[in-house]
């Protein structure tokens, strides 16, 4: 049997490298805008029903956009490190609304002067709540570009299989239906009633708000209604004990929610409205067109008296204070914030920050949830306000929630621990 000699192997490797080097193509553009963002920001501006929305800006500026994309937390980490250097290669960054504390805000250019010099089209059309989230110490440091408002998604086919005609309108009905929908489907798939990621604060906060409570309010009141938080964790624990949450709850991630819903392994989950197209994608989903969404339901005791405040997370575009060409950066932000691009990005799957987008017939026609989303957005607020120890506070919340849900700690003790451990982290 013949074998490759060392010389032959080395020669092949060097030859392969040389071939790759020759095949390498280079782009020709006079300017490059370096953007540090999540992949979703790139895709909603470049692919989808509305096509490449950056084309006009690129041509008029004779520029190319170089995207560096990371997942949310690594992205924020990288953005802050880049912005803390003497100079950064990045011209524009994308910031999450619960991160800009006073310290963080100093890393970015105040955008008021740019807005005064070259204003964004119809700036007042951008949802004021989203703008205020990026206003720190009186300075606007980011222009909102995307929101993700949570909804209750459900698999209509699975509900029909169990004879459930309508989705839940109260959280009590949700829990009851989730327990009923823990079964083995006709397709032979073991189904759990609900799947939730255990590493996101969004979900325990949604459940707490459904009972009239919260984690940290806008004015930094911690667990303002202890009873509501205990009910929320109690309901989650009850669902886990009944098998309506997966046994793997402690390791379930956000991507698992989408996969499980698409595969018919879960009947309910909580996801942003913008995921509607993805969960119904015919190439990925076993139930294309059968996955619907409604507003996350409130408790029956509060229904009709208090509106459910869904969690909304928003993103904004920032200019690092150490960026090289800030006017160039602003021209990109201005262009991407226009009405036309906002509507186009919405058609590409983005959560639009402009109120007028929801009234646009081209958007409404392509997004069956547009009207519902607009209603929910009007009442939504972030999971918690930004403060320096916010990430640690979130980690503590998640740890105690997991201990309670898995039965490792009594619910009352978990809620007490959340209060005791998070209180010292709040701004004084």
């Amino acid at each position: 049997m013949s074998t490759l000699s060392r010389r032959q192997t080395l020669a092949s490797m060097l030859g392969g490298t040389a071939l790759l080097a020759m095949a390498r193509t280079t782009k020709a553009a006079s300017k490059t805008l370096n953007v540090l963002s999540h992949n979703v920001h790139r895709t909603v501006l470049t692919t989808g029903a509305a096509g490449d929305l950056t084309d006009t800006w690129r041509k008029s500026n004779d520029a190319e956009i170089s995207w560096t994309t990371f997942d949310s937390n690594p992205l924020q980490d990288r953005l802050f490190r880049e912005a803390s250097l003497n100079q950064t290669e990045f011209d524009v960054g994308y910031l999450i609304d619960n991160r800009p504390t006073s310290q963080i805000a100093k890393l970015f250019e105040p955008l008021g002067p740019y807005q005064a010099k070259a204003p964004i089209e119809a700036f007042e059309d951008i949802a004021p709540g989203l703008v205020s989230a990026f206003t720190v110490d009186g300075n606007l440091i980011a222009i909102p570009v995307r929101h993700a408002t949570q909804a209750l998604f459900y698999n209509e086919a699975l509900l029909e299989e169990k004879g459930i005609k309508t989705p839940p309108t109260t959280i009590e009905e949700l829990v009851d239906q989730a327990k009923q929908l823990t079964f083995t489907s006709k397709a032979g798939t073991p189904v759990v009633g609900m799947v939730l990621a255990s590493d996101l604060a969004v979900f325990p906060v949604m459940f707490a708000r459904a009972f009239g409570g919260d984690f940290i309010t806008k004015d930094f009141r911690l667990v303002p209604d202890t009873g509501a938080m205990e009910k929320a964790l109690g309901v989650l624990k009850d669902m886990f004990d009944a098998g309506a949450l997966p046994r793997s709850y402690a390791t379930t991630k956000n991507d698992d929610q989408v996969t499980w819903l698409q595969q018919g392994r879960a009947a309910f989950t909580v996801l942003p409205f913008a995921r509607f197209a993805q969960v119904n994608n015919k190439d990925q989903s076993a139930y294309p067109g059968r996955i619907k969404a409604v507003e996350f339901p409130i408790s029956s005791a509060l229904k009709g008296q208090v509106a459910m405040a869904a969690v909304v997370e928003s993103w904004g575009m920032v200019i690092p204070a150490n960026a090289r060409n800030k006017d160039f950066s602003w021209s990109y932000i201005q262009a991407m914030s226009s009405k036309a691009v906002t509507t186009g990005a919405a058609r590409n799957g983005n959560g639009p920050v402009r109120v007028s987008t929801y009234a646009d017939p081209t958007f409404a026609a392509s997004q069956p949830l547009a009207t519902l989303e607009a209603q929910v957005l009007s009442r939504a607020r972030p999971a918690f306000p930004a403060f320096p120890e916010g990430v640690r506070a979130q980690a503590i919340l998640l740890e105690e929630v997991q201990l309670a849900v898995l039965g490792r700690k009594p619910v009352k003790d978990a809620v007490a621990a959340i209060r005791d451990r998070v209180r010292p982290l709040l701004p004084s």
Partner: protein
Amino acid sequence: MCGNRILIGLGKSAAVALILAWSLFPIAFVVLSSFKPGRDIFAVPPRFLFDPTVQHYLALATTWGGFFQGLYNSLIITAGATVLAVTVSVMAGYIYSRHRGALMTGSVVFLIVVRLIPPIVVTLPLFPILNWLRLNDTHAALILLYATFFVSLGTLLMRTFIDQVPRELDEAALIDGAGRVKILTGVIVPLVAPGMLAVAVFVVVYAWNEFLFAFIFTATKAKTAPLVISEMIGSIDGVDWGVLFAASTVQLVPVLVFVALMHRYLIAGLTAGATKG
């Protein structure tokens, strides 16, 4: 007695089969899934019979063109780090093999201590330093870092190989008028080439798959394939698992082929010095 031997043999075979299955299952899952239609990848019950498709590879080529640029960067960086690490390891290993003393012993201890430092400890302080040196987002930064972290192990490995080369050969070459460099390149290197390949295998496998340094120290120009793959995992808009598995398969193939070709030298490297000749 004969029955015992059969049982022991069966037990060993079962253990090897279990370890192989444990190790190979994730790779097999990734590769097979890259050819499965998207909706069948995570189907429960699992679908073992399916119509294979190359749509994910096509989608990878059309929507993630940056992945191939990342592969190119990975190749350059891996090749550079390997050449640098092996060259320095051979030179250092020769000195450690032919010279003794308290200073040499002390520096060997230092080499071992360096290996104990978790890379994360040095990455964050290094970030502003490399930025000041204008090495951020360059191939050179990663080549230097990867080589640095493997020179210690490489040196100790090469010392073991060079120890097996009789000193008399050095002396004979010296008598013939050869200098130290000539002895190293003309006498030692040809005889310890298997050891050099063993070091190369370690560096290649590490550098090809390394993520932490690439994440901290690159942005666009020197971004490596593992980094691009990590970008395919998005917590906001979801993962196209088929494309992700296609990218993982493409990234897996070169290093698998390389290790398969070099596995003899890898085993030689792992067992170097196990017996005294």
